[in-house]
């Protein structure tokens, strides 16, 4: 054991003597790990936050389908729905999308209802009469409007509306409200030219949460054209979307990992004459092949361990202090309205474990054979 400590000491001093080479390897490796962990940290943080928030979304959303497409739903369904055992409160939702050609952004327009009265994360108030609205931070920013300003929406000659902003959703709710415009139900119906007695969809509360799927099945039997979406499905879908996106980005970076491993392999294989001479000397003065392998193991371990930690720290700082500035463009995609990146720092040890698997393991594998090649040099080579 004492011997092992000294071999480690020697390994470190070998690394220190070749500062430039090892530092460059460590720097590249740290960077790679930082990129990968930024992706994982960010997706995980958003995933956790979204999934937590969705816990409070309605148990069932009922959509009407026509020709396989989402259609407006008759409000009268509610009467029938209320008759189904297990169904609690069912209420219509009125909402739709508005494409703003001025800013080429998509807004989500939503009708106000009484439940929204007590919302906290709002500066000002909710719209009370026709011609008033509350908007999300993103909308306000992109249209460069503030409280008391007017906002003009148009869908052709008939459907124009000018709304006075009476409420602004606070920035920290942007993940939910960024693209929202809340207006009164009548304005919305008029603006979208929706037929009377039709809603966008219906949300349904369920008295006993464990009965949700039974209730959903009953609803589908009653309205064969409908499509109930369960809260659990929502959550599951979001979970999968984030995994998928994270996975895709990781796969794209796989090329980078592979390239780095080739680089490591190359660095390790192409040891120069001086290094080979050194190992020859070690073997000549009584080091055993296993000792040299141990030495090489520690050289690798020191580089990969410190790079791993450095990369993690960099990623953390990048994602949670600098709000993932460098990743934002990748994630934004085509979005014009993108909520300001301020991920909640949800961290899971599991992420770190996965990162270890994706980075340190390939590194170790890439350096096994080269280290062995170096370690088996003949002890009497220095005598020739």
């Amino acid at each position: 054991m004492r011997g092992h400590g000294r071999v480690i000491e020697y390994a470190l001093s070998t690394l220190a003597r070749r500062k430039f080479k090892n530092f460059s390897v460590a720097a590249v490796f740290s960077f790679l790990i930082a990129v990968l962990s930024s992706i994982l940290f960010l997706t995980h943080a958003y995933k956790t936050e979204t999934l937590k928030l969705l816990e409070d979304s309605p148990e069932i959303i009922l959509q009407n389908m026509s020709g396989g497409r989402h259609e407006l739903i008759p409000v009268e369904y509610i009467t029938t729905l209320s008759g189904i055992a297990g169904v609690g409160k069912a209420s219509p939702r009125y909402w739709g999308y508005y494409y703003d050609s001025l800013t080429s952004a998509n807004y989500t327009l939503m009708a106000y209802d009484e439940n929204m009265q007590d919302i906290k994360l709002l500066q000002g108030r909710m719209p009370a009469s026709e011609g008033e609205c509350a908007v999300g931070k993103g909308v306000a920013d992109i249209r460069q409007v503030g409280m008391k300003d007017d906002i003009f929406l148009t869908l052709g000659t008939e459907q124009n509306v000018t709304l006075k902003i009476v409420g602004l959703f606070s920035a920290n709710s942007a993940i939910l409200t960024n693209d929202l415009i809340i207006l009164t139900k009548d304005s919305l119906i008029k603006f979208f030219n929706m037929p009377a007695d039709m809603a966008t969809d219906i949300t349904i509360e369920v008295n006993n949460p464990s009965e949700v799927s039974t209730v959903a099945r009953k609803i589908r039997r009653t309205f064969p054209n409908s499509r109930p979406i369960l809260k659990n499905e929502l959550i599951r879908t979001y979970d999968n979307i984030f995994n998928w996106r994270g996975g895709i980005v990781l796969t794209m970076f796989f090329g980078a990992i592979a390239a780095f491993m080739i680089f490591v392999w190359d660095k390790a294989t192409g040891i120069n004459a001086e290094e080979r001479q050194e190992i020859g000397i070690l073997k000549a003065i009584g080091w055993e092949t296993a000792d040299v392998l141990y030495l090489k193991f520690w050289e690798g371990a020191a580089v990969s361990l410190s790079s791993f930690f450095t990369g993690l720290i960099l990623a953390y700082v990048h994602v949670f202090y600098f709000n993932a500035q460098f990743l934002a463009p990748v994630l934004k995609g085509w979005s014009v309205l993108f909520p300001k990146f301020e991920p909640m720092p949800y961290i899971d040890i599991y992420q770190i474990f996965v990162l270890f698997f994706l980075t340190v393991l390939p590194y170790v594998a890439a350096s096994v054979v080269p280290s062995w090649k170096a370690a088996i040099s003949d002890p009497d080579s220095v005598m020739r």
Partner: protein
Amino acid sequence: MSKTKIFAAFIAIEAAVLAVLYISSANCVHCKDNEMSLKRAMVRAMRLTDAAFWTEARYTRHPSQADFFAAFQDFPSSPDHFPAGSIVPPAGQR
């Protein structure tokens, strides 16, 4: 054994920094509990079903409510939560 000590110290400092970050993140999440519960109240009151991450198309804004043809509706070749959506080209210019 000086270098081993320096290295151990370096790793220990990094680990400590990570631990501090981890704890502070847990703390930060904790102190935002209030904000979080307000947001959850908001979700409940407004009956929201999706987060406003991607708004470039309706099916990216509301992935949970996308319908079958969603991938071909708004943007050509846009990233999709359907695996195929990121690969299969759209049927034609709209």
